[in-house]
């Protein structure tokens, strides 16, 4: 067996796994398809302590009903229980999923619909097969194939996503700017000091904002992660903009939100430029080598 056997084994095994995964999904046998997905409702929100832990999320009490037994459960987000709840108000709906018949293994989720067909693992296996083919082509026929093989799809994906993302971001900013703001306040600044994998001490801080919507919902939320918060202090008053009907998408700093949006667009354009350039360079090199 020469070295081609290794990528053949890689692609064959992963291709088989992908086929099995797609087959299981078609047959409705994946774990994701069997998972029970329900919507719970926040019944109580506890105000965080200043200086407390930021990793546990906003403390909430949630009630949900198991559709198979009809039994109602009251739970809290204590310990390892799925996605962190960073924005909460009484009455807010939150996604909950758990294995059938085991509501005690509940997990909170930000997106109840995500991955419900169980196609993630087989699609990832297909991606790995593609990577194996590109690497084989790059070793066998020259490294420009790697530029074309990886740069091409990345450039296409970025180019396809960019206009839609840009449109949505502009629309969101327009809605936020047009919304009537409400006063908010920093009710706590959560701090974490921990050691990372290298043993270095790492610290972080997260301000917690409280505001009341025009509809009367008292919202407690972590300061948006994409915005600079080093100047935000405990007890500081803020002006909060939020889209009507979705207080979770609030921003306490509209100007910073616009700067962040421009930065995001710049990053996306740079990524598009890099991937497209790599693809073009790969194609040119291949053409030159073919001409020789």
């Amino acid at each position, binding site marked *: 067996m020469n070295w081609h056997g290794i990528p053949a084994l890689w692609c064959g095994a992963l291709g088989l796994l992908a086929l099995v995964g797609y087959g299981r999904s078609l047959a409705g046998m994946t774990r994701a398809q069997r998972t029970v997905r329900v919507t719970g409702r926040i019944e109580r929100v506890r105000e965080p*302590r200043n200086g407390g*832990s930021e990793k546990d999320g906003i403390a909430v009490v949630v009630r949900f009903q198991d559709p198979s037994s009809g039994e109602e459960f*009251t739970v809290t987000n204590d310990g390892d229980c799925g996605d962190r709840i960073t924005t909460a108000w009484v009455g807010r709906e939150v996604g909950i999923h758990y294995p059938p018949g085991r509501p005690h*293994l509940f997990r909170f989720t930000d997106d109840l619909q995500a991955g419900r067909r169980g196609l993630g693992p087989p699609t990832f296996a297909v991606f790995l097969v593609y990577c194996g083919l590109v690497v084989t082509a790059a070793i066998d026929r020259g490294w420009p194939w790697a530029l074309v093989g990886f740069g091409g799809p990345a450039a296409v994906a970025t180019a396809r996503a960019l206009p839609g993302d840009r449109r949505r971001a502009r629309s969101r900013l327009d809605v936020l700017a047009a919304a009537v703001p409400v006063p908010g306040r920093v009710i706590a600044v959560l701090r974490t000091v921990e050691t990372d994998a290298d043993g270095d001490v790492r610290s972080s801080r997260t301000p917690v904002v409280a505001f009341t919507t025009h509809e009367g919902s008292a919202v407690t939320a972590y300061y948006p992660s994409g915005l600079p918060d080093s100047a935000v202090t405990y007890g500081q008053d803020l002006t909060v903009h939020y889209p009507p009907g979705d207080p979770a998408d609030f921003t306490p700093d509209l100007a910073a939100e616009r700067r962040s949006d421009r930065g995001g667009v710049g990053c996306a354009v740079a990524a598009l430029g890099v991937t497209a350039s790599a693809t073009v360079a790969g194609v040119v090199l291949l053409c030159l080598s073919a001409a020789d």
Partner: protein
Amino acid sequence: MTTTTGRPPARSTRVGLALGRGLLTGGVAGGALAALIVGVVVGKVPLFVTGLGLPFVYGLLLFLAGRPRRAREAAVVPRTALAAVEGLHVAESAMSERPVRFDLTVTPDEGPAFRVEFTQDINVVDLPDYRPGGVLVVRYPPDRPWLMRIVKRPTPEWEERAAGARPDAAPGAARVSAPAEVRGVGFVGFLGLLLGVAAVVLLFRVDLFERGAADPPSASASGSGAGVGAGAGAAPAPAPAPAPATPTVSSTWSTRVVSAGSGVIVLGAGQSFRSDGELRRAIDSLTAERDPRSAIALVAQEDLLSVAFSPTGGKTPEFDPLELPYERIPALIEEARSSLGVHAPQSWQLVADRLAGSLSIRISVTGPEGTGLLEADVEGRVLRRTPAS
């Protein structure tokens, strides 16, 4: 007093399983590591791939084997109870989450109270909430109460119960602790690792040691002008200059002599060029140091191989010895020995050359009945049979 609840496996079974798994894990780790290294050294891709894939396969098998136990444990609904803090010790740390050693008396709604010790990280801001004599809400799997966790955010119902509860003394409460670690797992794992390495090295000892011992140092091979030694796959080196050939003896081949014009290999006792791969290995050895490796004739007998290399500027028709169908040759020899009317073959000889234009293989077999001849082409197809007469 130390007690455990549920029905854990008998201690002897648990110890046996732990030691067996340690031995197997060590063996797989050692075997995989050795397979990776030996695969690279002897140039066997399948062995290298085996070394690469073995840990993954073993991990997958371990994962699958553990599924029933995990499913059983996941099906157990955790129990929530009140607990009184008998004592606690906060470890010194600059981190915001401090490891706290708790000593609790747990009073479940069903069953007797018990004491348990465990460590849990508590945020420094929340530390004042935990003090001796206080009442906490805890949660634990009923079959493994040593996996106790404090519920930092209890539901309103349990919060009220904890607020209204008074810590009860429970003298004589049983102390619950996790089953003791099985001793010697590390040693057994190390033993398994050594065994795994030894197994792979022993399986491939011929490729590793005999080949390595027989391979000549490249400096002496090129310096003397004669490749001396025995072993296939010798490292390529500059073409040797004409010089007196010096025979040597190895454990694999009795004699191997290579000069600028010819190469000869004599097999050791009990070995035959009729064996699968033996002829190819010998040819590889004789031609590995030559570039180009063209020959004008190849003669093989039961234990003797002789190759006449093409002289520089010679006009004799030449061929690449590696063109011969080595995988077919043992079968052709057997066919010649059995199909040419020689009932008790005493000797055989294979001659390959290009004197007739195309590369031809002639196998002659001699016995009491005379000499028979079988001719084959470069693909190993039989062209002609001349029975003994």
